[in-house]
């Protein structure tokens, strides 16, 4: 079976758009025709943790029932009062509340009171559906209350093929899951890049009360591959999800993560590290929506751009009415190494709750003068210093790898990028 040509027009769209001339609101993903569907996925997890195909949908439906108990629908009187308040000084003859399209869409999602409607995929529904189609059966990791499971999924890039995995994680109350996703390219040097292919994972996470889920995704494919990393997260009360994404390879990579912090005091942490070199393209989209009280999110992105690589990062923290005491934080640091790089960043905070704290920061630039001076005093030229900062991303990824497969993948990539790199990690 071969794929047909598909263009996903508005992948990884940020919830609140801005000027079109910036070309940042979303991205386009080209899925070429003629690719085979390659089942190049290895799964390693205890069979006891295998869940039913509809486990995620069932968990969300159960959560819907519980949520409705604690969040009754507004009464007719309350709705009337709200309407009257808005209408009091807003004359419909000159345009009502004049909400923008995204403000109307956001209200519609809340008014639906549906957890399923509010659940999002970071790269968008279309990209997730493509990966799900290519992946075939879902890998469902279901962990029972109080238990702990380590699982690993390795996706191997095959030239001329789509290699994808669709993973559901359902973590029952107070359980713990460590999921390692490795997207690898075990081709020999010289063979890579011969023909385009697609790798990808689409992951849905349901973290029930008090559950702890850690996901570590490492991507080190090379050549002309396109990689798509799609995630959708749901956190119930006191649940915590921590995601680390390491993006090193692929001619084009698309990373999208959406999270619904629904339960009170739940938390999502995202730590993203990336390297862009030659003419690689990097695209990131994050959308973290705070529904529960005292929820927290923390998004950290650190990357190096070299060569003529380009990167776009859209990060949205949405503090929705009712998430009292919530805290959203987002910080990005980008080091620009070469003249031809192109970096785009749009860190967004949407807020219609006053009892919250939201902050974001971004630092984009070159190596600071004092850093260069220090390195020069140690005999390192500017070029050597720049190269060092770029390879440090790969080195750190190898050091922090949580599984042998992830480490081997990073070291192999580092060696191709910089011969001799593997020597650093020889036993």
């Amino acid at each position, binding site marked *: 079976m071969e794929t047909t040509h598909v263009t996903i027009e508005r992948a990884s769209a940020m919830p609140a758009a801005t000027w079109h001339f910036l070309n940042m609101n979303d991205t386009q993903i080209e899925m070429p025709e003629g690719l085979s569907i390659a089942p190049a996925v290895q799964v390693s997890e205890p069979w006891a943790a295998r869940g039913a195909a509809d486990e995620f949908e069932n968990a969300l439906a159960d959560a819907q029932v519980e949520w409705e108990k604690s969040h009754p629908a507004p009464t007719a009187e309350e709705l009337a009062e709200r309407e009257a308040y808005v209408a009091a000084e807003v004359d419909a003859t000159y345009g009502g509340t004049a909400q923008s399209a995204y403000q109307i869409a956001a209200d519609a999602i809340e008014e639906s009171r549906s957890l399923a409607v509010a659940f999002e995929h970071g790269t968008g529904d279309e990209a997730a559906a493509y990966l799900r189609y290519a992946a075939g059966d879902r890998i469902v990791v279901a962990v029972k209350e109080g238990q702990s499971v380590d699982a690993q999924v390795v996706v191997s890039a095959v030239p001329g093929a789509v290699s994808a995995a669709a993973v559901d994680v359902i973590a029952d109350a107070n359980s713990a899951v460590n999921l390692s996703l490795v997207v690898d390219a075990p081709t020999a040097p010289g063979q890579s890049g011969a023909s385009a292919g697609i790798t990808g994972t689409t992951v849905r996470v349901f973290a029930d009360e008090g559950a702890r889920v850690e996901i570590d995704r490492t991507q080190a494919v090379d050549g002309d591959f396109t990689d798509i990393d799609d995630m959708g997260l749901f956190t119930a009360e006191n649940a915590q999800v921590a995601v680390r994404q390491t993006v090193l390879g692929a001619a084009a990579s698309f990373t999208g993560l959406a999270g619904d912090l629904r339960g009170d005091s739940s938390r999502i942490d995202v730590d993203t590290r990336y390297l862009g070199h030659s003419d690689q393209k990097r695209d990131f989209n994050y959308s973290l929506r705070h529904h529960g009280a005292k929820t927290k999110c923390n998004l950290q992105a650190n990357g190096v751009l070299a060569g003529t690589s380009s990167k776009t990062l859209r990060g949205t923290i949405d503090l929705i009415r009712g998430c009292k005491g919530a805290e959203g934080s987002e910080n990005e640091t980008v080091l620009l190494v070469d003249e031809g790089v192109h970096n785009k960043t749009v860190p967004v905070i949407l807020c219609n709750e006053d*009892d919250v704290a939201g902050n974001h920061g971004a630092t984009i630039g070159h190596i600071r003068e004092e850093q260069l001076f220090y390195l020069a005093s140690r005999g390192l030229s500017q070029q050597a210093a720049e190269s060092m900062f770029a390879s440090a991303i790969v080195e750190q990824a190898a050091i922090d790898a949580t599984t042998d497969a992830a480490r081997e993948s990073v070291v192999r990539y580092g060696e191709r990028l910089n011969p001799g790199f593997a020597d650093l990690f020889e036993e």
Partner: protein
Amino acid sequence: MAETKTTVTASGKKRTQVDDVDRSMYDFRYDDADAEKLDAGLTPDIVREISERKDEPAWMLEHRLKSLEIFNSIDMSDWGPSIDGLDMDNIVTYVKPNTDQKSDWESVPDNIKDTFDRLGIPQAERSYLAGVGAQYDSELVYHSMQESAAKMGIVYSGIEEALHGEYADLIKEKFMTLIPPTDHKFAALHGAVWSGGSFVYVPKGVKLDYPLQSYFRLNAKGAGQFEHTLIIVEDDADLHFIEGCSAPKYNVANLHAGAVELFVGKRAHLRYSTIENWSKNMYNLNTKRCRCDEEGEIEWISGSFGSHVGYLYPMSILAGRKARASFTGITFAGRGQNLDTGCKVVLAAKDTSASIETKGISKDGGIQTFRSSVVATPAAEGSRCSVSCQSLMLDDRSRSDTIPAMDIRCKNVDIGHEATIGRIGDDKVFYLMSRGISEEEARTMIVNGFAEPISKELPLEYAVEMNNLIKLEMEGAIG
């Protein structure tokens, strides 16, 4: 004066309530029966008639008609506040007051004179301005400049008057080059029906110690105001220009789609201060742009208070080496308002620098969005830009969004961005109370402190009307 009180939320936290600002001083209006109005709507005939009434050169009519074509061919942006309540078929694009432009205040008709008297414009002129222009609906009704400024070679006149004078060629060269009609739908509309506005020319090396001020008053119901401001500050010159706007409230939509084009020469400096205080039935779709040459500097001071819907993003194009821009802005959105404001910066030459500091306050269901773009082109080596944006939510019925974009295309730049959003912290109130300050006063002090870095930059001392406005609005916000 606005009243404040403190209420307790469901979660037990205290919240400062701020009453709406008393806008009665702006809401007076006069019958416009004596004014000449063109038909509502937008047609080539209306555009031709505007041009004919102004006895314009042929190129301007051509420009207007081309702009109208562009207006009809492009869509409204899909990312900002809705403008569904604005029906162009009902907007009167040209309203001529029952007078010609005067340079003697006493000759201005009583109703118009009374309007500007009540807004404090003549007092301001006498006290501390080097020149004043006053526009009423579509036309300037008064323009004057101190003799000393004229002797320095400074030109400050109506732009239409200047189109017939010695600067006609210069205006033709610059007009709508920074804001081309293709830029967006309402830039095209402006190009088609613009009327009134000021032309300022500051010759090389001339530094004016006192500001010039233009005041725009839209009196007619269901009308649009489309003034064009063109300012050229030549090399090594210096100018402070103040712009003020207001309108009475009606129960139909009014439209303001002005354009401001600023050219700052080498080592020149321009400070452009604006208070936009339109009534809450106004769609304010204003466009402002500045180009700075080598070592030139533009300072924007911007206060956005009124309007039902606002789209306002002054843009600085730093085209010359070491050109600088700063933007200091505050936006206050109350009930029934959706104000989308911010700024744009293009770092387009070596060693340029920009600094952006904004504050936003939203209350009573108001929606306030800070939107910005910082673009560093490949030519911007050695440039730097810092963006700081703080938003304060005074209740949980309101909305405050921050959408800052950065597009960096070169290596040796330093771009920093930071933003915070939240409410008045209980810990801060507690600290002040432990120093013997009452709770209400503590909350007032905190909000006052929040707005202070911006409000201290506003030209309070320059115009009585603005003084009143800031007093009302800020006291409204801070109790």
